[in-house]
């Protein structure tokens, strides 16, 4: 078992390295190329006046391709990391923040790559990889003792429901991260009108599609959590802070979906709500650190 746990960590390490490479490539591709041009002019008197101007252009296509390639490497290594960990633990990697975050990176990358393939847009990767990399840095910051596989405490000993409840949460959070990335690029595009970024309409659509996947998923998270709570604690809803934080997140995305049918709200205002929504996701994700209540054991 120990070998598998180590192997899982080595795969995560390799995935982190691939992630750094992918992040740099995507960032370069999205920011674009800056060309400095120096022009010189000779005057009648003889001295030369020179001036430097900057020209912006789309990023190198190769950078985008390398970004995708490295991101796929990261997907494979993260996938192997959670596979080895699952075999070692004889359950899904969902029992603490180390395992949950490992799985989150894998699902986030995978979902992003699917969006990239469907929409044929790579610039979104600059934001998504930043989130994935931040999550990897968080994992590295966790105490080494958390890399050990711990047995489940009695409250968590419900493998089918734990797998369903936590994996749907990861799916929901990952798609919301993609919608956040689309909203950020949308706001940049609306303000700056960058020619090599995807159109505002497409970015709006990516944000919406991501939410249409994540919103039912988060509803499912709440329902599966209720079923589990009913089985373990005797009440399907107890106003536990983690429960209500997830409900808050769900309501924010509910507001987003309703605003899209309002004149004057679709576009910038909806994108701002996506930013608030993702802040709510982060709040719910890390809530274990500062919430009391029945989910407190899920922290560290």
């Amino acid at each position, binding site marked *: 078992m120990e070998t598998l746990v180590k192997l899982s960590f080595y795969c995560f390490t390799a995935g982190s390295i691939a992630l750094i490479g992918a992040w740099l490539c995507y960032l370069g591709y999205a920011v674009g190329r800056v060309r400095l041009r120096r022009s010189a002019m000779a005057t009648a008197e003889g001295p030369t006046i020179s001036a430097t101007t900057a020209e912006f252009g789309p990023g190198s296509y190769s950078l985008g391709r390398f970004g995708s390639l490295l991101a796929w490497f990261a997907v494979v290594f993260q996938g192997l990391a959670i596979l080895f960990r699952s075999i070692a633990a004889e359950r899904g990697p969902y029992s603490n923040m180390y395992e949950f975050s490992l799985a989150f990176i894998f699902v986030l990358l995978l979902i992003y790559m699917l969006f990239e393939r469907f929409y044929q847009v790579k610039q979104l990767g600059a934001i998504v990889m930043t989130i994935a990399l931040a999550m990897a840095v968080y994992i590295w910051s966790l105490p080494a003792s958390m890399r050990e596989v*711990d*047995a489940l*405490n*009695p*409250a968590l*000993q419900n493998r089918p*429901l734990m797998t369903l409840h936590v994996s749907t949460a990861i799916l929901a959070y990952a798609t919301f991260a993609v919608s956040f990335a689309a909203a950020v690029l949308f706001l940049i595009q*609306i*303000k*700056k*009108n960058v020619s090599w970024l995807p*159109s*505002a*309409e*497409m970015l*709006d*659509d990516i944000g919406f*599609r991501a939410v*249409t*996947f994540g*919103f*039912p998923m988060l*509803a*499912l998270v709440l*329902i599966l959590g*209720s079923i*589990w709570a009913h*089985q*373990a*604690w*005797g*009440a*399907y*809803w107890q*106003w*536990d*802070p983690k429960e*209500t*934080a997830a*409900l*808050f997140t769900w*309501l*924010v995305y*509910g*507001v987003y979906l*309703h*605003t899209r*049918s*309002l004149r*004057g*709200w*679709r*576009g*910038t*205002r909806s994108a701002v709500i996506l930013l608030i929504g993702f802040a709510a996701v982060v709040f719910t994700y890390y*809530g274990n650190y*500062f*919430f*009391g*209540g029945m989910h407190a054991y899920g922290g560290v």
Partner: protein
Amino acid sequence: MAQATVDKTALPRSPLEIIVDRIWRFFCSVRAAVVEIAILAVLVLIGTLRGSDAPQWLANAIPATQPFVDRWYAWDVFGSLPFIGILTLLSIAIAVCTINRVPGIWNTIANPTVRTSRGFLRSADLSATYQNATPPEALLDDLSTSLKKQRFRVITERHGEETHLYADKNRYAKLATFPFHLALILILVGGIVGGRYGFRENEFLIPEGSVREVGHGTGLSVELVQFRDSWREDGTPAEYRSDLVLYEDGQPVQEKSITVNNPMSHGMVTFYQASYGQAATLRVTDDEGRTLFDDSVPLGLYTHANNPDAPAGVQVLPQAGVQLNVIAPDNNRANAPELDTLNLRSGQMYVQVREIGPNASDERPSAAINMGETARIGNFNVEFVRESRFTLLQVASNPGIPIFWVASLLLVAGLAITFYFPNRRIRGILSMAPGSSGSQLELAPLAKRDWSAKREFKIVAEKLADTLQTSPMITERASVSDTSEVSAEGRASAANDSRSTSVASKEVR
């Protein structure tokens, strides 16, 4: 114009009608719904933060906010009037909105408007135009067949020399919004039914060997045969298990060994493993040999001044007019040893007898009793039979649960159908091509500001091109729906984009 004036004067509306109409419009308003959901979200956030240290961080950073933070912690948000009020408002809005929208949506499904205009087709964000040598009548069959193969319903109408076409798919998915919204009301109904007709005991405590009645008119009682806990080498708990026997009207009806995730149910009543603790089995008799108590006293629910660190319990014997205060040995002698005035050894139990009632004496006779021995305390003989344990169960009966499960199913299914089977609509006009005996087909999707719908339309247009054996001219016009929010620079660019793409239409094939 004159006719309109006559109509208005002929049907004046009463103030009541106007008020009802405004209330109705308020509940149907999406803008109002957004505000209501946003208020609900803010209240949920306030309630969530109340369960965390975050408000206290605020008070620590700005001491002047401490009274505000104290009130925040004291406010039961989820039981408050504003919270219940906004939930009620939202429920009414959902119900009213549903009633308001059903006829319209059903009409668009059953009797959609087929007739369209060239103005719509030519100003649409995206359109496709086909020129074909085949006469319109012959082309219509191929067109319909091709669209039907792509799961579209096709309806046509003849208007003069033109045939107007309406095609849609996933039309019934539009109805999925209703079960989803009604599910939200059902969840609230489930909560109300559970609260009104169910019950919940959070601290249902049974010592080993004891039987406790559930009450609430159930006729049920539960016996704890044995409680077992197992621990891992690293000191973490592996399992808490209670072996229970359930009696209904005194007759055993079920035996089950329950754990935290494995409760015992009988009818609507369910027993959940919640916690456990230490207990002392005592037998108390009076001078005449009558048994006043022969059961276990749960420990750990109280503390006693003689040793605040030690688990203590209280047992009232009403028929004897006394209360037994029972104190176990200190589990952690190293902690504040000066408070441990009893100095009990392992295997001992300290029992104090205290009279209760208005004329109770201040005397409190007591004794430390060794396990298996009997001590004379006051007028009673108290035997410390053995150390035992109790289990703490939660007992709940919630008739709202089936409603909740149905609502959950409707909610997820409604959302999934709404989002994963989007309704797609296409309008078109088939006519004679100008100046030839062939035909001209103009199609446009109802897809304003919908990138995915436009993408799907392009795929449909390409497939139609295969069927009709002709390449379409696809015209894309940049959407200017967000121009009010675009910066001046972006606006100029968007206008340029619109001109260039609409003039330079591009061929798909």
